[in-house]
């Protein structure tokens, strides 16, 4: 099992955000980036090791994207809405905010 740490980062302004990880749906509403740290909110979930699919949708804008990430141990995923696209980054190291 791996731990997936999802961070909703830049570009959110009272948005509804739906993150689907290997078919498991996580929905957040009122997501707003705290501009002084470039982060809106974070949550964790456990997934099986291996390739996982992360689908991100902001139905009210509308924006969506689909990404694949190799999961092992702990993976940090940062999701941002940049203009008309969703950007996803991932790392085995924690992202730093300040």
């Amino acid at each position, binding site marked *: 099992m791996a731990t997936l740490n999802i961070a909703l980062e830049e570009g959110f302004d009272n948005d509804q955000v739906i993150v689907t990880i290997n078919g498991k749906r996580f929905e957040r509403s009122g997501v707003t980036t705290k501009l002084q740290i470039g982060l809106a909110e974070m949550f964790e979930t456990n997934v099986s090791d291996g390739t996982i699919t992360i689908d991100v949708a902001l139905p009210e804008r509308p924006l969506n994207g689909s990404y694949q990430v190799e999961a092992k141990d702990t993976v940090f995923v940062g999701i941002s809405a940049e203009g008309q696209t969703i950007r996803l980054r991932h790392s085995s190291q924690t992202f*730093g*905010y300040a």
Partner: protein
Amino acid sequence: MSSDETASATAPQPVSGLYTWQDTPIDVQPIAGAPAAPLLPIRSEELRLDVDGRYPQMTASGIATIGLAGRVAWIATLTPAAGGGWSGAIWFKDGLTAIFGYTKVSITVQQPNVNAAPLSATVTFSDGGPVFTRVYQYASRFFHTMNMEFDCATGSAINLDFDTASHPNRPTSLAKEKLTIQEVFKRAGFDVTTSAGSNTKVPISGAGGNAKWSNQELHDAMQVHWSQRAAEAKWAVWVFFASLHEQGTSLGGIMFDDIGAQQRQGAAIFNDAFIKVPPPGEPPPTKAAWVDRMNFWTACHETGHTFNLAHSWQKALASGGKGPWIPMTNLPEARTFMNYPYNVQGSTPAFFKNFEYRFIDQELLFMRHAPERFVEQGNAVWFDHHGFEQANVAKQPALKFEISIDKPSASYEFLEPVVLEMRLTNISDQAQLVPENILKSLERVTAIVKRDGDPAKQYAPYAHYCYHADQVPLKPGECLSDSLFISAGTTGWSVSEPGYYTIQLALDYGAEEIVSNVMRIRVAIANDRDEERIAQDYFSDHVGRILAFDGSTFLTKGNGILQSVVDRLPHCNAAIHAAVPLALTMGQQTQVLSYDGATPKLTQTNADIGAATASLAPLMADTARAIATLGAIDYDYYAARLGNMLTQAGVPNVAERLTIRGEKAKATSRPRSKGASAQK
């Protein structure tokens, strides 16, 4: 001491810094036969000259105190001038810009010799107005003063400095020194003092049972432990060192203070967050320096946020109606305290390889030269808590500006409009020339209304009136007066909800400001549910406009609401106010433009004197009460106007029921003596 301060006394002295000007009398146009007299002489202005010294921005900015709001802020980009000094175009203005048309400045500095501190700077404003020169006295090599307080949670350390030579990954040109947070901001242009209240140990119990700080807990700790805390904006910041935020190790620091009216006053650094963990490849001998460096960067970064600086990749971002002060571009690769070192190309090593421990130029421009309200910690809602308290008051005023009401007490019923009397009196012993319509036009009047517990609002009338600028002599003791319906304007209803209100006005008299007395009024709660129901429609733009313009044939919905006030609340003072525009509208023959398809046509509406007379019942029922709520000036005006209308309509018997007190004009556009006005 900073490297600047240790400069040799014989070294060339920078001329950059703060210059001030104040207390120069303003000559007014003399009246024939009367000696010229200074009128409201006190003003103060500032000049920030930024052409040399540390990180020069080749910029000048200034504050001109013109009018009540006080201030026109201007910024110009400078280049060296051929004959010495600098000149450039003014590219930014903020405040009462309409009366500050200048677009160019030329500046020279008066300095005994290059090794001596400057004495003054002469600024010539031109292009956009008569050429105007002002001499400012040198005040400081810094652009602002500010105070920093550094406290920590029990078990955590305060880290104020960093040895720039301690880590080998640095620019080759970087000075080797023990750099402090205070020095970073001194180099940004601030005369930083460290609070004597620093080094307070804040009990970790403030973080709750988990010993990790939430934003609310941080805010609470600031309220309790920051010795400089005040419910006002001030150039001061509380920097707090703790172990961890409740978000965990991913948060190295935060400018947590986005709660309440005064924001951006507090920042926290979390010593045990990711900033404490060197990357796996960091050699053991430099691990401690790596941690020191990240801690120092975080402290300066979070403190930078308190100056309203955004992250460098967010410079152009607008969110929630808030955006950059001037058009900007994102700079994700910038080497500044406001960037994340680990997010640039090449990550942290690449960042520190050419980071010079400074803010970049666009940030320095903002910190040094943007209007203070954009930058100053805690500066929030326009005029709230400050307002006219900051206005300059003349030492020996020649004119007195007063506001009053004609009610026996300053208590207003729910729904009752507020009408003030403005009075400008010559209190000197010499005649003064004043614009005849200075009160009537409202162009020069600024009014602030603040309900207790709410932010202050600047009243904006529905209309300004343009009058010929005739000047009239005002003899000693004489006054001009006019009324001001202050309840509603283009920014909505200033007075509506029950509660206590503070009202203050100021008169822009050229380059001067004359501040009125402060008036406190109380608005009562609704008497019954019927008043509450009517209020839902009453506090609308339509009703406000009808009351302000004494009627409308177009705003029929508003007329219906006012008619319901007359019909359902005849005992209320609001009915007296409602009666006037309704009667004036219904009692006159009007023509309404409408369209039949694309064809315009004028439709004539006949006067309905019966309905007009009926609607006047609340006004005619109790003259004393009508005068009190309408104000004597407006009552006299309405009585005369309504009386003429009724007489011409053939109902003089109704007109006779309106008590005419003798004055026909709505305002005293001609001077009158105190005795004449005292009859009200």
